[in-house]
């Protein structure tokens, strides 16, 4: 892979988010391969050290990309994490697909002040925004799974996320592994 191709891949990722390629291709320098659960395709995501990731922006006080209703969207993402991460001891990627109804149930605990209609709006809008920026992947109309971007969390952050996972009560009683 030439330098030009590498630069092109980086530009693609920068302008279009994580890129999904077929499993056989080469890996440009500085990118990480993230294998899908069925091993049929590969996501390319930037493999940045902790000191060069997006966290640097906040360190220097530079405003990053803003997101509409970031608090609500974060709660939707947390609900997704709770539903799609069957075993917090394992890695977050690839997780498992979850129906959006379950996520709505979890979200109900996270936003107790909202009524059903407003919560449904938050869920739909939050899922759409998160899918647009690659945090989650929508499959069909009512199923989703975690997107490739969650793999960019470092080990330190993963422990925080595990704490978060335990913090969120599970509402679906038919999951023996989430007790």
């Amino acid at each position: 892979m030439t330098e030009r191709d590498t630069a092109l891949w980086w530009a693609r990722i920068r302008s279009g988010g994580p890129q999904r390629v077929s499993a056989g291709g080469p890996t440009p320098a500085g990118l990480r391969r993230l294998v899908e659960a069925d091993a049929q395709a590969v996501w390319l995501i930037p493999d940045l050290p902790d000191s060069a990731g997006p966290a640097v922006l906040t360190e220097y006080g530079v405003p990053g990309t803003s997101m509409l209703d970031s608090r609500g969207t974060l709660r939707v993402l947390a609900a997704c994490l709770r539903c799609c991460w069957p075993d917090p001891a394992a890695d977050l990627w690839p997780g498992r697909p979850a129906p959006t109804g379950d996520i709505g149930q979890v979200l109900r605990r996270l936003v107790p002040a909202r009524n059903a209609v407003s919560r449904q709006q938050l869920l739909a809008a939050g899922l759409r925004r998160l899918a647009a920026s690659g945090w989650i992947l929508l499959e069909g109309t009512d199923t989703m799974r975690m997107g490739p971007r969650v793999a960019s969390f470092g080990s330190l952050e993963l422990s925080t996320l595990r704490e978060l996972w335990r913090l969120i009560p599970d509402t679906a009683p038919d999951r023996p592994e989430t007790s």
Partner: protein
Amino acid sequence: MTDAAPLTLDDHEAESAVLGIYRQVFAVLARNANAMVDDADSVGVDEAILRAFAGAGPVGMTIEQVVLACPNSSADVVRRRFEVLRSYRAVTRVNERAHELFYQATFAPYVMLLFLRRLSQTGGQAELHRMLSMARLALDDDDTTPEVVREQLLEMTTVFRLLANPIMQLARSATVESLRAQAQPLLGNSDLLDKARMYHNAAADRHPRLLPECTQLRMALAAYRDAVNIAAGRLLAHAGKTLALGLLPTERWRTFARDSDAEDLARALDGLLFDAPEPYFTADELLEAVEEGLMADSGRVPPPRSRSDDEQPPTEVDPDPEAKLLAARAEELLAGRDVVTVAQLLADAGDWPTGRRVLSEVTAIHLRPELPYAVTWGDGWWVDVTSTRTWVSDGWFRRDRPESA
């Protein structure tokens, strides 16, 4: 304007533009004939008259025939214009003899009219181009004498000076709005400048004796270029980058935006790469948001209320402590009496500083309508040259207005 009603604003503008040029050129002539051109209709009548003559053939026309041939204008107007045309010899008698009824028209005024109309529409630049081309042709002609070339060079110098001066004036001292409105037709003709420079070079090559005149022309050209550059610079500085794209008229951009398809429009962004929407969430932010949501169990937080009903209202505060003081002072001054003269009060006070204070207190008491005391002044006048107060007006301080207390 005799027929103003059916005119639109645009028609009026076009007509007044024609009229403006016409007035400049013919003002001198027409003033001698006591007939200034005072509306755009006159220009039209002139044209109609000349057209009628063109159709009349070599015999010529009488005034009555001319009036008949111009049915769109009233006979009086046609006659008046006919007289004006005759006075500057645009229309002459067929035979120079008394009682000659037939007139014929000369072609030059009509050419002039055509020229003027076009001049007013294009601002004269096309004519300037033609003049330059003709001068260039004349220069290449072997029959042209250096005197003719010198004359043409001087003419061109004058033209460019005249062109440069108003632009420079606008660029220097006019408002940007008027600069934009007026200078635009005069700006942006680099090919005119190129043509003039080529003419200048050719003239200088061919007639080295005319170098001083060539220098004059070159300086005029440079002045024009400077003026255009300054005006354009000022327009650019004021308009910002987006409006300044080549100073194209707005309609051009609008037409482009309306007529192009999405691909054409997107081509403007070729070579640019935009970042994907890529908000980044740290795990801490996630945790914080979730904890906040979990803690907000009680639903809505009641809105903050004022704490006023918790504590006792403050004890009765005297809103006006000064009133009591003044009332006490009034009683003191009256000393049980119902009325006392001001002179008496001043005399009781003794020296003037104390008396002055008494006076001010009395006035303050009077000016408070809620206190039952008043001062009334009379017309009398006490004079006592031996006292410190050499004169005192009649005045009484009295207990009064008991009902308003």
